[in-house]
């Protein structure tokens, strides 16, 4: 084991400095050091998408990245995404459509869905399915998630079209 390394980064707008083992994965850093347990570990292979967070604006798998690689970055987790209110309509749509059952995939799923919605327009259902196809959900069968994302895309496009 090599010596601990000090890292400084921003999580949900708050600066954090910590000393971590070089081998610590970003997901473990978020959960254990930053105590942001909304990000979940599912497969540890970058396959299931449960650990997806936003890093400098892009979706990343926090189980495939070392904490030390996040030095100097800005990370957004589900806690920040929810608290900021920026995706309130998406969270509300997930709730109304029951696009959440056990909730374990939800944080990663929401980050992925938000990424698609940020591209604007109204993606068709196949495009939505394709975009979230890196996020495993065992409970819902995905349809309600597609419903929620599609509805938010329509609503946002309607508002944009109305110049609101």
């Amino acid at each position, binding site marked *: 084991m090599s010596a601990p390394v000090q890292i400084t980064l921003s999580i949900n707008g708050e600066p954090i400095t910590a000393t971590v083992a070089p081998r610590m994965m970003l997901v473990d850093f978020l959960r254990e050091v930053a105590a942001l347990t909304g990000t979940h570990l*599912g497969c540890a292979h970058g396959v299931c998408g449960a650990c997806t967070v936003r890093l400098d604006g892009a979706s990343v798998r926090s189980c495939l990245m070392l904490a030390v690689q996040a030095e100097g970055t800005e990370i957004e987790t589900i806690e920040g995404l929810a608290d900021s209110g920026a995706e309130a309509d998406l*969270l509300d749509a997930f*709730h109304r459509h029951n696009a*959440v059952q056990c*909730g*374990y995939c939800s944080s990663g799923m929401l980050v992925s869905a938000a990424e698609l919605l940020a591209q604007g327009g109204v993606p068709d259902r196949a495009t939505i399915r394709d975009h979230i*196809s890196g996020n495993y959900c065992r409970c819902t*069968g995905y349809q*309600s998630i597609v419903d929620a994302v599609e509805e938010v895309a329509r609503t946002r496009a309607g508002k944009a079209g109305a110049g609101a």
Partner: protein
Amino acid sequence: MSVTTRYDRPNSYIGKSVPRPNAVRLLHGRGRYVDDKVLPRMLHAAFLRSPHAHARILRIDAAAARSMPGVVAVFDGNDIAQVMTPWVGVLTHLSGMRSPPQPALARDVARWQGEPVVMVVAHSRAAAEDALERIEVEYEPLVPVCDMQAALAPEAPRIHPELDSNLCWERKIEVGDVDAAFAAQGATVVERSFTFGRHTGVTLEPRAVIADYDPAEDRLTMHYSGQAPHMMQAVIARHLNMPEARVRVVAQDVGGSFGIKIHTYGDEMATLAASKLLRRPVKFVADRLESFQSDIHARDHRITARAAIDGEGRLTAVEIDDITGIGPYSVYPRSSGIEGNQVINLTGAPYDLPAYRARLRVVFQNKVPMCQYRAVGHPIAMAVMEGLMDEMAAASGRDPAELRRLNLRADDSYPSASPQGMRFADLSHQACLEKLLDLMDYKTLRAECDRLRQQGVYRGIGLVSMVEVTNPSPMFYGVGGAPIAAQDGASVRLDASGAVHVSNSITEQGQGTEAILAQIAAEVMGVDISTVHVVTGDTAVVPYGGGTWASRGAGIGGEAMYQAARALRQQILATAAAILQTRPEKLDLCEGQVVDADSLEPRIPLSDLARMVYYRGNELPEGLQPELIASRHFKVSDYPFVFTNGAMASYVEVDPETGMVKLLGHWVVEDVGTILNEKLVDEQIRGGVVQGIGGALFEECLYSQDGQLLNATMADYLVPMASEMLDIHIAHVVTPTRTSELGAKGAGEAGTAGAPGAVMNAVNDALRPLGAHMAQMPMTPERILRALGRV
């Protein structure tokens, strides 16, 4: 659709698609899963697991591991056995079943690759895993017994030398003159052999436990990711030799379970033992490799089945022979016999069937233990019978829908019983099939299939008529000696602010358990649902009961909730009547108030009544002793199970060049009795269908011949993802069960029960003009190409 409710007025929630109040915090990242919890002085466990499917443990050298930084303790099977007794996973009503005692950690012999052998407890999981690498175990490899048929051969090595064979259990059924039916003149007889591979639950949250033993109180708390807290309480107490009341099991948020998290696992039990030995909290969270190697696997059947219809197309006999491989032990305490038992109990259940013969053999093998997983046995029973129905339709020149019409149990024929002795009531097979054919526009779709075949496009339709066992009575487990309650309890109380607090022994894994409890309580109590507060999952506070499994939550826990709320309602009305100097029947509850029953004019708010009772008892009429709390328990009586029924259809296209199956349509009509929350019911069905499709097309635990699991990562084991799945159309027929006042049956497993058979029939319908036939799941592209003779 609309559902009739007896309360057509404000606070009417039963039957409405109310969003789950407790889902918001999950969406905000505020879930409380086991691994999210950190306790003071908590240690972390990791396990060294057997690399061999079958091997004698000659020597364990953990000296180097013990001296690693951060390591607090190392335990092997003998250490844990000092404080924990082994368990035996047999049920006495499954007559003749046998399974040797299973230790938490392997002792002397390891019997599957992945069986826990040594446990390291350290200050961090990383430190514990580092120490695992320093442990030396000397194994003497033994001959692995992996193939279930070979395991039954007289010369096969015995997995348990104390038993005379590798047979765990055998059961036979014979009713009616089966041989005569098959030999009858004019009969159309088909016979097929089916193979159903092993798959597993792949809950996104792996199994997880924190064991927290407090020696000052001699109290052990288990933070549990699971479905049946009271069952675990009994299991832990029994095997750690503690009074049950000194064991507390707490299940908060659970990241999926599907039957995976309802069994006794050696690693979890060893974690509990370690906490007791070390007198401080110990956490164990399975990683994904451990999940594949130690979560129970499911299915694993080889079946030969035949069926006959007479010249009129009427079913005359069915015969089935099922061999199922369960790993080296029957899993405790539910046993690994129920899966196969359900297969032979349920085959043919939707149909009028005069003669039936079955043989089930449950076989030990050196693979991960197999046990109950969502829809236990049903997908096999339905796929076999529905597969035979389609083959008989083809062989006799009948339309598959028509053959089902001819043979389904009539909607006006209940109560009735099957040759296996299953008792049916309140079913609607005929109505469901007709509604399904209408919903999917069967005739148009059939014409489209036929037209496209002329163009070399191979599409097929698969139908399934099905039953599902729900709301089980004590005849499922309790009768066989397992510490598993068939009843559930509900409690409801009014606090001084007028808010309603309910607790219930059924548990939440995302189905919406807490939502339907709140709906029921709010409606009966006449309050806004936002004033109802629900607690589940904690043996220290909820009434005693079975938990959530076998699609029993709504039907049993929901009925208990209904009865408890009705009792409290009566108590409140009696109190209010005494205060208001009227009779209880002149009063009602509505929008948080006691109201006049006829005019609905408010008489006194519940909050005022509660405050008077709790704070100013001196103002109450003399002699009045109000109780603002009520509890009720409910179990199903008169019937062993409350069956549901449904019909399902799949529409697929098979590419004969690649063997790929494209899902084009899926329709479900299901009768779950009274619908408490249609959205939640539909989402249970959708999720279940997709899980069933996973087993039909993608999911399989692949083993080498010597018992090595070959695809134990999510990169190698395929699960359904959004892009391969499709929108699923759902409709309902509503026939309330007579066994309860609410009339709700279960809804959690029907999707998984029926989908594999529907997809298999659709694939076979598509392949029929090509002369190919599939009878093995998952139906991978390679297997389809083999069936087509292309590879």
